[in-house]
């Protein structure tokens, strides 16, 4: 009840306002663009590092333990602490945010890619060897395609959590939409701005997730055929 009363007593601070969106369209768009570009760059860099790492752990089983252990420890480190570790060296800016989100995305992708690779059936691997595939041929034509569902799961998880994590970049002034949310809070708790930033964050995560799910469907037609049969 008190919620309703305060809402009525304070018509100047609605939860959402098209007026606000219209008036601040450029700012919102800039924040959205920054957020999108940070996320895309982070996931791209993380993938380029994570997949080779997963392959290395797959080829040399001795590496799997250490790689998983390091990523596990890294995952317990709170995001703000990671910012705190890197900011004094990388400075206040994009480099710090990017490094932090890349590190977290990296863990998720490595773990899922490795899980995907180890699930390649032994019979398939042996058959490929019998057909004369070398190590690299087998990797690109057998192992990686079969591990694709795992890799894509990792990519999706990493992307969605990266979208959320970028907002913490506020601490170094590069939080994308987080900047909008935080400024709204500091600027007399302006609800419309906080809400706009939040909704765009969730929406962005959803769009990325759906896009990746679509890419996954296109790249793994055999899974669809099997489930249809």
């Amino acid at each position: 009840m008190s919620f309703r009363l305060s809402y009525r007593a304070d018509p100047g601070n609605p939860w959402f306002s098209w007026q606000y969106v219209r008036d601040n369209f450029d700012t919102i768009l800039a924040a959205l663009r920054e957020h999108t570009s940070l996320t895309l760059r982070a996931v791209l860099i993380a993938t380029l590092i994570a997949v080779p790492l997963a392959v290395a752990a797959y080829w040399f089983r001795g590496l799997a333990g250490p790689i998983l252990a390091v990523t596990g420890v890294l995952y317990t480190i709170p995001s703000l602490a990671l910012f705190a570790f890197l900011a004094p060296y990388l400075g206040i800016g994009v480099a710090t945010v990017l490094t932090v989100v890349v590190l977290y995305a990296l863990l998720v992708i490595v773990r899922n890619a490795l899980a995907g690779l180890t699930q390649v059936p032994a019979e398939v691997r042996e058959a490929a060897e019998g057909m004369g595939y070398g190590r690299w041929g087998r990797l690109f034509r057998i192992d990686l395609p079969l591990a694709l569902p795992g890799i894509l799961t990792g990519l999706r998880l990493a992307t969605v959590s990266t979208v959320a994590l970028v907002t913490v970049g506020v601490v170094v002034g590069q939080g994308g939409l987080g900047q909008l949310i935080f400024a709204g809070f500091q600027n007399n708790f302006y609800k419309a701005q906080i809400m706009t930033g939040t909704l765009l964050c969730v929406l962005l995560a959803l769009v990325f997730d759906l896009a990746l799910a679509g890419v996954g469907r296109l790249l793994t037609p055999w899974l669809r055929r099997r489930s249809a049969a």
Partner: protein
Amino acid sequence: MTVAAGPIEAAVVWLNDPLNWTNPGGILDRTGEHLAISAAAVLLGCLVAWPIGLWLGHTGRGGGLVVLVANLTLAVPTLALLTILPLTFLGFGRPPVVVALAVFAIPPLLANAYTGVRAVDPEARDAARGMGFSRWQLLRRVELPLAVPYLAAGFRTAAVQVVATAALASFVNGGGLGQIIRAGFGLDIAAGGGQILAGGLLVAGLAMLVELVLALVERLVTPRPLRNRGRRAGRRAAAAVSGA
């Protein structure tokens, strides 16, 4: 205080100043706040997630719901919840922070409670039914005890995550060790670098400590015959599905 050569030296200097520990708003105060907020959030999460998860697992329905909740909370930035909740009926102060953190504790608690009950051997369930157990007795005396290892694992994941996320409460002046990092960022990076790094070490250290302690607790509450059973049960379930 002299300006030390590098951030690490500055952090050591900062950590070695006893006043930084005992001052109001010092490390001891902030650690207490951090743990109090986290404990309240995990408790709230357990009160909400465990009954629902156990019940859903018992009835065998709602698996999709569990996944949906987990995915949704993954997409919502912590910062958004921390800034939105104080503006609702919860008001400013500690309650909104606790609720925000509890929201992020719920997915691991819920998923593990659900899986824990689902993973109970169907034979044990049938035997209990054959002995004339009612649904409630079945849940309380068979499924719940057998799900304890999963509940403990979920508790550990949730607690570590909450302790880590509680550092972000500092964005809305919610207290906790994150406040030290934020204060450091409030200074110039050259002057505050040591404090930032020290705060980061404290936050990370606390998270690791909680992880270690709860790993021990998890081991202790898991009866010896059930240790490593999760893996075996998983394999058995897979074999049953594939018809092997």
